[in-house]
């Protein structure tokens, strides 16, 4: 019963947030909507006993990603109104057709009973995504008294590499100062760069 209440409440928050992301004219509202939706999802994770994932969701998304989004939105300029007229003639009908296609497909599948969620509850033991559990699964697992590398170890290391690459890429992108053609002597820093004939 409790879960039903939580599902209805948080589901409404998530859907509302999602619609706000898509509909809001001002991107700041969109970002707020996104934050609400993500928070609702974090609540669902807790319901699903994925405590660690829920914590990460809040910290990483609400704490870092949304903040980053807000920074960029401020930088780009909130006041810059998005052009309302659709530039691409076929884009809007095509997008709506695709969405309608998805819905129609889902409807056909559900009605014909060809498709069920293929989920059987309680098949395995109840899993608790605590920090210890997740951490242990990430690095190594014990099997018959023998510690061996977890099957998640390689992806784990690979993502660490990916993060480094992303960080370096973001930094170098931020430092990159192209010369603007339309405004020649705008930045002295760019003009003073050695090896670049100005």
């Amino acid at each position, binding site marked *: 019963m409790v879960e039903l209440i939580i599902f209805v409440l948080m589901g409404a928050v998530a859907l509302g947030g999602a619609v706000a992301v898509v509909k809001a004219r001002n991107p700041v509202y969109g970002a707020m909507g996104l934050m609400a939706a993500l928070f609702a999802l974090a609540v669902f994770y807790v319901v699903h006993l994925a405590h660690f994932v829920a914590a990460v969701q809040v910290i990483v998304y609400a704490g870092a990603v949304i903040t980053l989004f807000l920074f960029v939105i401020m930088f780009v300029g909130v006041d810059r109104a998005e052009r309302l007229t659709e530039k*691409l003639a076929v884009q809007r009908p095509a997008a709506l057709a695709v969405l309608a296609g998805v819905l129609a497909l889902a409807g056909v599948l559900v009605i014909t009973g060809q498709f069920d969620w293929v989920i059987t509850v309680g098949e395995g033991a109840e899993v608790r995504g605590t920090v210890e559990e997740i951490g242990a699964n990430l690095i190594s697992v014990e099997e018959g008294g023998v510690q061996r590398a977890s099957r998640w170890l390689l992806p784990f290391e690979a993502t660490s590499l990916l993060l480094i690459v992303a960080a370096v890429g973001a930094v170098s992108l931020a430092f990159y100062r192209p010369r603007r053609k339309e405004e020649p002597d705008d930045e002295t820093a760019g003009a003073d760069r050695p090896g670049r004939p100005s």
Partner: protein
Amino acid sequence: MVDYLWIVIALPLGAALFNHFLGRRVGEPRAAVPAILSVAGAFVYAALAARDFFVSERASEEAVTVVRLFDWIPGLGATAELLWDPMAAVMTLVVTGVGALIHIYAVGYMHGDPRFGRFFTYLNLFIASMLILVLANNFALLFVGWELVGLCSYLLISFWYTRPSAAAAGKKAFVVNRIGDFGFMVALMVIFAAFGTLSYTEVLHEPGEVIGAGAATAVCLLLLVGAAGKSAQLPLYVWLPDAMEGPTPVSALIHAATMVTAGVYMVARTGALFGLSDVAGGAAATVGALTALLAATIAVAQRDIKRVLAYSTISQLGYMFMAVGVAGYTAGLFHLVTHAVFKALLFLGAGSVIHAMAGEQNMDRMGGLRRKMPITHLTMLVATLSIAGIPPLAGFWSKDEILAVLFAKGGYYTVLWGAGLLTALLTAFYMARQYFLVFGGEARWGEGAEPHESPRIMTVPLLVLGVLTVLIGFVNTPFRLSFEHFLAPAFEGVGLLHAPEDGFLLTALALVSTAAGVVGIAIAYLVYHHASEDTRERLLGRVRRPLMTWEHGYWVDEVYGRLIVKPGLALANWSAGFVDQRVIDGLVNGIGGAVRRAGGRLRPLQSGFVRSYGALLALGAVALVAWIAARGL
């Protein structure tokens, strides 16, 4: 000692690598030091390893050693194995011994050449390759050596590649050798098909139990094609005269003493196969006789000092083929050894003369060098008399044995004996002619030429080879057949043809062939030395037509040019112009054009609008899911 036989090959190979990388840096005289030492070291090592053969002369079982190095291609029976028997020992000693002397000589001859170190790189590589060839214990390794010496020959013929004629000569040698190699390769395939292995040990041990006479004939004829290519026999001899474009030490080492005898060695090595087929042996002997006679006639009318020797080499190789064709393997190998010595001497002497004349090779502009170059003159005289078959020099003994073997075979081979005798006469004539033109008479060189004796580093090898020319014939005189006994273990189970042992017959044959030599020399003396200028002109004018034909080598090059090269060029042009440009390029361009046109059609899809890509992506995903659903999950 024998277990580490690979050292013999590794030494010159190592020196070649050294000079390849460091030859330019260590400079001119020093680059030659490792080159000479490695070859001399290989000679000493081989001599020590061959010591057992001198001791256990009769113990044929122990005399043949197989040194296994490593597995190479086991499926072909081609393990990297070296065969060490008296025949291999003889070849190794000849290659390294004569090779070492020529290396020393080359230090003087190549003096001042900007690519001095590179020259010794090639020379050492050649020695290593030739040793692989003679020491191989299977046909695959033999083939490797065979191709490597061909490569070295090419590199050294066109060593002075800035001269167009040298570059062309190298190319010609390579292409003509390729024809022979084709036959050789087919022969190897047939051997493998018949025996299931390429190992000498299995193929050459009583091959009669595996293949019949017909197959043996086919194999041997194909091998003969390969041998004719490498050893410059009819009809593939045309590359050797042109190969004289290379430096003279190269001519001496590769195109006289060692590489060109590879064909003879190969026939002798596969004697067990040739023993199964009278036809193939007869073919080899006939080819040899024809080549010997033909080349001798051409040599008569050559003006270039090296071309005379080149045709002489072809002619002498013909002798060896005559010998091995009638299974007179020891006679053939004996001539191979003596020829290696005195022909190397002749070439080195000629090189000394050319060196003295500052590059002049035309004998018409020489003469009177007797007093200017005493050592060269003396050694050349010995070599000339040797090749002319004057006793007791080396050439007499070996040539005489070949003729005796041919005569002993009798029947059809008596005709070949006649051809050989005629060749002997011609040989004596053209060699004496060369001698008189170069050393005798009055000086005919132009103003400014100042002939002088060559430096000591060149004359010492000449002297050593001169002494050897006098002495080496005695290893196998009819009085004492040491060489034949020495080689006997290598021909265990092969039907060898020996010279007759009838003393009277031998003496008569020797007298006849000596007479032929003396007559040849006498004619040359009368025409080119004794007769006055006018008389000689008149005499030669009478035989102008044949002389003309011979001077141009029967126009064989021209005939080959018309019959083979021109159609070949036409074919190549056709395939380059039509097949390549129209068909193949057309195909490639057609595919490229089709892709380009298809790309042109599909270009609008790539609008640059991210959102339309997104829409297409979503559409694709929906279509994919729909398809999966339609298939029924």
